């Protein structure tokens, strides 16, 4: 097996391969041959991104166990079985991703040990730098979705063939969108053209090109500005207006870069998969125009927001609704915090993602609490009028935009002290006490 390469959906190799395969795809007779070509692409991408055989074995166990458990849960739906397997799955995910929490949880004797188990070397207590599975975070969330839906009897059919290709789909393996299995399976069984005419084909080509421009041209401009200037303001020293201006560039550049990069990536993979008869779910809808954190997650990384609602928020909130139907809406704000905090931690293994999740959780809970208080004070009619006011709308969008900029300031810095220093320095400078 080769050393892992970085998978770049805006690179000429990927785009050229997609266009070449798309040109012959619907000339292939029968759905089975088309599936075979697609699956070959999936295998090729896996071969390129998995750094060693141990990673491939770990991935096979991870996905294989999920598939078997989905079959079992479809036949014998058991809450205990699902909860036990999900606990194991979360533990496996934490170890495979080498979350920093392992350093605190593992006894120091184990954490510092080096050994070899079944041919897999363990250094400093964890499988360090050996197992690397690109896209594991997304596979993890897709697997949870399949297991929960299977236990609830929502998945009619599932085969190893469709499950493997669903999880390892080359268009979504890297960073989503998080497609529903039922949606994938239905389209996978047909693989018919979804672009109705030449106009739709051209529009799709345009979307792919715009995605490349977002990733390759606009995004990097803002990334470079952010990268070059952030060092100058990382200690939070705002001794002159020059530093204040630098901070503003850093503050706004990263959110623009991240949007261009991620939305551009989604444009490319959504457009590319349509060439092959697969409509992926949309992931962005003018996110920075959202008026609060909860709305933001219905516009930014939409499929993740939906996943958080269905598999984190609802399992906590639904029992409360069933038990206390009248009081439940007033208590909903409590459950937004843990749901979004967990989703934040999912983004990465380091502390900055935990703080990012906590910040989003506070924002979501605060939004719901504010809405509950407004409803109690203004009544339903008054709340409607409040929400329709253009001035309130503008103010809400402005506040939420800056809330998200702070959020991404935390997200962007591995050293969690840096955003703290920056924001503290900013507040001190604005209140006339620069240090």
């Amino acid at each position, binding site marked *: 097996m080769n050393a892992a390469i*970085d*998978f*770049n*959906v*805006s*690179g*000429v190799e990927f*785009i050229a391969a997609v266009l070449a395969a798309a040109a012959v795809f619907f000339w292939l007779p029968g759905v089975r041959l088309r599936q075979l070509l697609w699956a070959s692409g999936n295998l090729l991408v896996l071969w390129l991104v998995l750094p060693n055989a141990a990673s491939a074995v770990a991935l096979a166990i991870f996905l294989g166990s999920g598939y078997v458990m989905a079959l079992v849960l479809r036949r014998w739906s058991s809450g205990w079985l699902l909860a036990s397997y999900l606990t194991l799955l979360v533990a496996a995910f934490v170890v495979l991703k080498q979350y920093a929490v392992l350093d605190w949880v593992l006894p120091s004797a184990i954490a510092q040990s080096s050994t070899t188990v079944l041919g897999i070397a363990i250094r400093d207590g964890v499988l360090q730098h050996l197992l690397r599975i*690109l*896209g*594991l*975070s*997304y596979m993890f969330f897709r697997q949870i979705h399949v297991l929960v839906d299977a236990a609830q009897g929502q998945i009619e059919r599932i085969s190893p063939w469709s499950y493997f290709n669903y999880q390892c789909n080359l268009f979504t393996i*890297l*960073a989503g969108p998080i497609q529903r299995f039922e949606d994938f399976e239905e389209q996978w069984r047909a693989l018919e053209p979804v672009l109705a005419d*030449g*106009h739709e084909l*051209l*529009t799709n*080509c*345009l979307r792919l*090109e*715009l995605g*490349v*421009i977002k*990733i*390759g*041209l606009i*995004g*990097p401009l803002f*990334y470079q500005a952010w990268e070059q200037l952030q060092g100058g303001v990382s200690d939070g020293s705002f001794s002159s207006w020059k530093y204040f201006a630098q901070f503003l560039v850093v503050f706004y550049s990263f959110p623009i*870069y*991240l949007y261009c*990069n*991620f939305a551009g*990536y989604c444009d490319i993979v959504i457009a590319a998969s349509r060439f092959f008869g697969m409509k992926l779910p949309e992931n962005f809808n003018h996110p920075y125009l959202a008026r609060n954190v909860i709305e933001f997650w219905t516009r930014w990384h939409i499929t993740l927001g939906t996943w958080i609602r269905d598999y984190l928020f609802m399992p906590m909130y639904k029992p409360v609704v069933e038990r206390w139907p009248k009081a439940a809406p007033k208590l909903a704000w409590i459950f937004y915090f843990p749901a979004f905090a967990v989703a934040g931690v999912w*983004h*990465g*293994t380091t502390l900055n*993602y935990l703080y990012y999740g906590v910040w989003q959780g506070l924002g979501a809970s605060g939004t719901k609490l504010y809405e509950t208080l407004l409803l109690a004070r203004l009544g339903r009619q008054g709340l409607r009028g409040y929400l329709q006011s253009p001035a309130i709308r503008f103010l809400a969008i402005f506040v939420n935009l800056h809330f998200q900029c702070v959020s991404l300031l935390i997200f962007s810095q591995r050293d969690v002290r840096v955003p703290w220093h920056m924001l503290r320095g900013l507040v001190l400078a604005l209140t006339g006490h620069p240090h």
Partner: protein
Amino acid sequence: MTEKQPTWAQRWDAYTRRHPWLLWLLVLALAFLTGPLMIGGSSVTAVLYKDF
């Protein structure tokens, strides 16, 4: 009852259906622009998604 106004995306779609040359022109022009971008690649993408 008032009729719902078409969105900008719907207007654009209708316009380019009436004037297909515009879509062709855009696709070809952007192909020239995006070609070098694709060849140049973007290491930034790789940096961002390593955590996933």
